Each structure stands twice: as C-alpha cells, then as structure tokens.
C-alpha cells in the first residue's frame, strides 16, 4: 500500500510540474517591469470596499515599474537632460478626476501623459495631452500642457523598484516619485 501511495504522490508531482510549465506562446507574456496604479486618496479602491471613503477620488497614476537591478540609474541608465518616460512600456498616465492647480496653472479634469527631464538637482516634469502612447520615443513638445521644475531630494536607502504614489497635503496632494537614491514631489492643489 505504501508503494501505491508513493507512486500516486510521484504522479501527482509529475502532473503538477507539467501543468505549470506548459504555457501558450500566442498570448502576451508578463512584463518585466510590471504595471501598477496609485490613487489619491491613497488606496481609494480599498477604502471604498471598506466603507471608509471620506473624499472622492482626485487623481490616479498608471505606470510601469522598472527595477534598479544593481545599475546606477540617474545620469546613467536615465540620462540627464533628455525626456524620460517616467516608467516603462506604455507612457505613464496621470488622470485628474477634477480640475486641479499645479504650479499656479489650472489643469482640466482628464487623462494626461507624464514625462520627466531629469538632471542632477532639478527635474522638469511635463504634463502632456498626448495620451495612449508608448514611452517617450515620440515625445512632442507641441502637446505640452505644463512643465514644472521640481528639486531632487536624495534618499538614504536606495529604492529598488521605480515608484509613484500620493500623499495628503493641505488642500491637495503630493505626487511622490522615487527611484534609486532620488525622489521628487509634485504638489497638486484642489482649487
């Protein structure tokens, strides 16, 4: 009986292995830089199912998350002075659910693409109306809605995976962007 047990356990394992290893080539593979989204209010979808919503959704970013993988990032992988897609794969999208004010300029509710031109101490963040595109390869200044210079803040512990998230401030939120040893903050005001 013990032999039967071992045999069936063995066949189960074989089955499980073959089961997991066969995959279809025709359908898209999983991205190396996975996509993610962040809301303001932070974790809005989770607040919603926990009945903890106190304010309506104001903003959301959707972006690809490349990894540092031991490489120097700014000034190297991401060159200074050039338009960077602020992510990977599809262009990074920021959506405002209401009209907002950034750097004293009114931005209408809607979807936009976000780019950056990094340099050592200051990044220029670009809000563009050219949505649903790929990376920054065909970036066109004609579609700029706004350019905002933001100072670079050094972070002590390097951030492995590129990250965009929001945090609360008075009458608005900050979009926090961090990768490797750099962090920038874009204030978004609800007025």
């Amino acid at each position, binding site marked *: *009986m013990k032999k*039967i*047990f071992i045999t*069936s*356990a063995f*066949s*189960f*394992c074989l089955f*499980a*292995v073959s*089961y*997991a*290893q*066969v*995959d*279809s080539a025709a*359908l*898209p*593979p*999983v*991205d*190396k830089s*996975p*996509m*993610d*989204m*962040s*809301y303001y209010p932070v974790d*809005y*979808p*989770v607040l*919603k*199912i926990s009945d903890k919503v106190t304010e309506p*959704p104001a903003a*959301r970013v*959707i972006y690809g*998350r490349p990894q540092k993988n031991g490489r120097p990032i700014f000034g190297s992988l991401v060159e200074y002075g050039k338009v960077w897609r602020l992510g990977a794969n*599809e*262009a990074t999208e920021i959506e405002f659910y209401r009209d907002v004010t950034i750097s004293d300029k009114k931005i209408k509710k809607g979807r936009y693409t976000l780019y950056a031109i990094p340099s050592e101490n200051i990044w220029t963040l670009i809000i563009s109306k050219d949505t*649903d*595109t*790929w*990376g920054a*390869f*065909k970036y066109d200044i004609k579609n700029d809605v706004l350019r905002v210079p933001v100072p670079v803040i050094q972070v002590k*512990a*390097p*951030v*492995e*995976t590129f*990250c*965009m*998230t929001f945090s609360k401030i008075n009458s608005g939120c900050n979009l*926090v962007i*961090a990768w490797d040893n750099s962090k920038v903050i874009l204030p978004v005001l609800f007025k």
Partner: protein
Amino acid sequence: MLCSILLYSCADTAKKNTPPRIQLKDTAIAQAESRANPYSPVDVSPMDMSYYPVDYPKLKMTKADNEPLVARIIYSRPHLQGRGLFHGLLSYGQPWRLGANEATELDLFKSITIQGKKVSEGRYILYSIPQQDKWTIVFNKNIDTWGLKPDSTKDAFHFDIPVTRTDNRIEYFTMVFEKAAPGANLILAWDNVEARLYFTF
C-alpha cells in the same frame, strides 16, 4: 483493489491541497524585493493593460494608428503557481473579479455593440460568474473600487459567453484583444479555459 487505489490517490491529492512550490517557466518578475519598498511594494499579481486596436500605443508611436482608439482594459494577472483554476482558485457559480487587486477596468472610447447589445462609451469594471460551460461577464458602474465585493445593484450588462478548453495551459491570467471580422474579440484565458467577448463598432 482498483477502488482502493483510486480512493487512496484521491486522499493523497486532498492532502496536497497546499500547492507544491515548483519552478515556473515564466520570468519570475513577482518576487519580493530584497529591500522593502518604503512607498509601495511590488504586487505579486502584476497589473497590465491591453488596447484595441491591439498595441495601440506602439502603433501611435510609429504613426501606424490607422483605426481610432476603441477600448482599453486594465487588469491584474494572478498566476497558477501549481494550482488548478477550479481546484483551489475559483468555484463555479461564485463571482470572480477577473483579475486581482483593483477591480478590472474597461474603458470604451466610443459607444459600441458587445454580444449584440449597445454599450455606451465610458468606464466600467468587469467581473465574472464562471460556470462549467459558460461564463457570465458582468459590466458594472461601480468604478475605482477593489475587486472583491462586487455591488450587483450597479450592474449595467450581463453577457453569457461559452468557454472552450484548450490544450495549452496559461500560467498568468490574460486578457487581450484580437481583431475579428468585423470588430474584435476580448480574449479571456487562464489555465486551460478560454472565452471570447465579441465587440462590433
């Protein structure tokens, strides 16, 4: 004797409800980070998006976008990790969020016809009720939510679509558009199950 063998192997299988940790063929992108990300950890089930026209952002980049933008789906991609889809993951008749984490979102950039029904332009979340031979795909207006706890009072459309069993097993849940004549299909595929939602516009 045969019965006892069968019984014994069933009992054995049942004991192995915890899936064996085995090497997956897919690129292991979803590993935990060596150092915790202080802002936002990387999801185990990564998010992805699919457009119709297929690869619209790349077409746009190469100025090959001959057809207007129709639809985009944003969803998360859970993976089997040795589990069978209906052996430890989903149950027939129980709503399933068609993904993971945030509710799966469909943006329609124009009003179109889906499975013969007119569907208005706008944003929906999708969930499903899988059965053995058909899946009900639900379009719901409770957007910007987490995939659990679908609110059926905000359902907008129900589509019953047949499912087929495939020879290939798909490790990561996949939603992708394909061109049809005329229109497009939204393919839903995971494990050995495949279903298609038919769009015309």
